[in-house]
């Protein structure tokens, strides 16, 4: 039961907060909602103020006239009653009781059948006046003595004039009250000298009813007015907002590449002028984008033509050089050496051409991904296998340290392979490290590969420079090593094409680490990398079964 209650409470709170969110959302997103809501709130405040003032004035007007009328009527009644008492010869006190009863009846009859007041005679005035134990109260039917406010009782018993106040008539059956003007004055029985207080109670039911009617009228008028104002605000803002929304939709379509979209312009008002300016902007955008597209197309075409035109003669030259190279044993030493140089430099020329074409393909935006699901750990293994011979020649230990766990990623396998190749050959060529370790890891978001060396490291600031085209840490040293100077730049472009990161860390003497992070799905979300960019370098590193345990501390010292 409790669980159900808690669930209900949660559901309720959730739907409430959802409703609040929806309101907040439309407040933030829709000018129309904002205008309508603020107009509604402001006019509601004004209408409430006006209504309050109106009811107050009407109420005052109604009660004032009723009061004046009641006072004059009561005055006349009291005067008549006093006159009647003065004319009455009084013989004894028992008679006096009868006289007073008659007096009240007389006064009641004076009002006729449509008598609009109640009467109350209290007294005689003296000690204990005002309490119910004192006899001598006379009244018209059902009126309770509680109707008399104590202040008025005191005033009337103490003074000679006519006193009045607003009050409530309460009846003896107790459940009914009505607002009233209560007027009272002292009268005297001349024979005995006893003084009584005669009260006239004028109920104001009619006035209260009228006031209620006015209030109800005002209330419904206010509601109708509010609805009307809201509707007007909605209509007016719609006239402004609709073209704006139309413009937004068209702008979105333009942004999505439908450059021929235009706004429909009608009339000559501000909205029409907005439409004209908007269309001019769109036309100018379209023109410029077309121009850029044309330029990019020409660039791509040029790259493709250069590629073809350069490659065919290069193929012939390369084959000729190869034939010469194979036959160099028959040449004299200078010619033989020339054939060797020709061969070696052709390799360099070829890789430079390939890299240049790749870079210009990126610049032209012509690079496209060919996606398939691959295991990054496999690619790392293969890259190490392919570079093993080169590393062995230079006395470098090249290893993969991964858990042996597959790290599947959706990627362009040619590009991914090229990134890893570039990172590994970069480490072999430039780090001067005795050891290079690749590490692969993945989490639910992405996969990562690091290439770590314990060589010369990077100077401060170089970690971004390394990705610049043709950048070399030490020009005098590096050129002899070979390489095109474009490898890391291309690797960075490849990584970014996948929506991934390629970053470098390095410190002089401590070595360097390059980290590639790719989202599991190409261009998917990537917030963190499964591997740290700055290596932790614990002396003992957990290495999975398929790989030999490495003593990484040795490389560091």
């Amino acid at each position, binding site marked *: 039961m409790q669980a159900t209650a808690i669930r209900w409470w949660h559901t309720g709170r959730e739907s409430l907060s959802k409703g609040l969110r929806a309101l907040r959302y439309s407040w933030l997103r829709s000018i129309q909602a904002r205008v309508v809501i603020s107009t509604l709130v402001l006019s509601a405040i004004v209408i409430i103020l006006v209504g309050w003032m109106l009811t107050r004035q009407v109420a005052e007007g109604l009660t004032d006239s009723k009061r004046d009328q009641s006072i004059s009527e009561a005055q006349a009644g009291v005067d008549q009653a006093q006159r009647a008492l003065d004319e009455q010869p009084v013989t004894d006190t028992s008679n006096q009781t009868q006289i007073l009863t008659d007096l009240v009846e007389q006064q009641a009859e004076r009002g006729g059948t449509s008598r609009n007041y109640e009467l109350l005679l209290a007294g005689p005035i003296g000690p204990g006046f005002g309490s119910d134990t004192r006899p001598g109260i006379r009244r018209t039917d059902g009126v309770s003595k509680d109707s008399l406010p104590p202040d008025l009782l005191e005033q009337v018993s103490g003074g000679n004039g006519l006193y009045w106040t607003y009050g409530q008539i309460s009846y003896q059956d107790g459940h009914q009250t009505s607002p009233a003007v209560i007027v009272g004055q002292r009268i005297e029985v001349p024979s005995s000298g006893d003084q009584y207080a005669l009260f006239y109670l004028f109920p104001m039911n009619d006035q209260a009813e009228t006031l209620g009617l006015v209030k109800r009228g005002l209330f419904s008028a206010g509601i109708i007015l509010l609805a009307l104002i809201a509707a007007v605000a909605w209509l007016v803002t719609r006239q402004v907002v609709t073209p704006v929304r139309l413009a937004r939709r068209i702008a979105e379509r333009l942004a999505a590449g439908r450059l021929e979209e235009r706004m429909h312009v009608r009339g000559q008002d501000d909205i029409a002028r907005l439409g004209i300016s908007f269309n001019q902007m769109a036309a100018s955008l379209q023109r410029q984008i077309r121009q850029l597209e044309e330029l990019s197309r020409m660039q791509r075409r040029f790259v*493709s033509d250069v590629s073809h035109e350069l490659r065919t003669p290069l193929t012939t030259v390369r*084959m000729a050089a*190869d034939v010469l190279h194979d036959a160099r044993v028959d040449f004299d030493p200078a010619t033989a050496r020339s054939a060797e140089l020709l061969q070696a430099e052709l390799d360099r020329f070829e890789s430079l051409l390939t890299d240049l074409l790749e870079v210009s393909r990126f610049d032209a935006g012509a690079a496209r991904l*060919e996606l398939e*699901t691959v295991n990054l750990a496999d690619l790392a293994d*293969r890259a190490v*296998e*392919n570079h093993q011979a080169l590393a062995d020649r230079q006395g470098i230990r090249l290893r993969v340290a991964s858990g042996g766990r597959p790290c599947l990623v959706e990627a362009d396998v040619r590009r991914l392979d090229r990134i890893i190749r570039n990172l590994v050959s970069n480490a072999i060529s430039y780090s001067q490290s005795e050891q290079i370790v690749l590490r692969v890891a993945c989490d639910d978001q992405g996969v990562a590969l690091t290439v770590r060396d314990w060589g010369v490291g990077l100077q401060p600031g170089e970690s971004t420079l390394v990705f610049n085209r043709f950048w070399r840490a030490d020009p005098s040293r590096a050129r002899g090593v070979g390489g095109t100077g474009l490898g890391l730049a291309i690797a960075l472009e490849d990584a970014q094409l996948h929506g991934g990161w390629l970053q470098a860390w390095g410190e002089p003497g401590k070595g360097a680490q390059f980290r590639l992070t790719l989202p599991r799905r190409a261009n998917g979300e990537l917030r963190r990398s499964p591997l740290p960019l700055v290596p932790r370098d614990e002396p003992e590193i957990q290495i999975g079964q398929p790989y030999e345990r490495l003593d990484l501390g040795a490389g560091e010292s």
Partner: protein
Amino acid sequence: MDNDPNTARSGSKGTVLVVDDDTALAEMLTIVLNNEGFETVVCGSGDKALAMFREQRPDIVLLDLMLPGMDGVDVCKAIRAESGVPIVMLTAKNDTVDIVVGLESGADDYIVKPFKPKELVARIRARLRRLGEEAPETITIADLTIDVAGHSVKRSGKAIALTPLEFDLLLCLARKPWQVFTREVLLEQVWGYRHAADTRLVNVHVQRLRSKIEHDPEHPEIVVTVRGVGYKANAG
């Protein structure tokens, strides 16, 4: 060319039809191939390529994709339409679109300019080398019967025409049904590549093979894709 000492010494290893409009390259190719013991026939334009192919009956065709007259892709289709002869494309472009278009038009393999002569020769040798040179053997996979020595595939007695490469690919998969072959392994076993990451070759040829042997190539039942790994033959 008959007086080339190499040809005389080792005997001809086969005839290569070189279709290329670049005379220097064509001549260089001739020199290199002759050195390796192949006979060569050169054709300088796409229009005449088909006629020369019919006349010379070469063992392998080296075809440049960019040709004056008839386009290389069309030449490739025309030759493939009447023969299963191995075709190796020469292309100056490494863009996937160009490669895939060439492979889909029927080429078995491609080589991107500029290439090393040894690489070219290795490709040609790989294409001329046949897998099933062993004892007569019959393999059954699904409802297909493969006659290894006779290089033929039959479905309920009716022969299905496969190119030698497609035959090799099917045979490689069918010999070990249920074993999943990665694209890299297939590249090594069928194409003779080592350390190659280019899987477009495998993908295109698996599609071509499927279009010939599957009942519904859209939903293959014999050559099945194993996502993230590669392909396998489904014996059931």
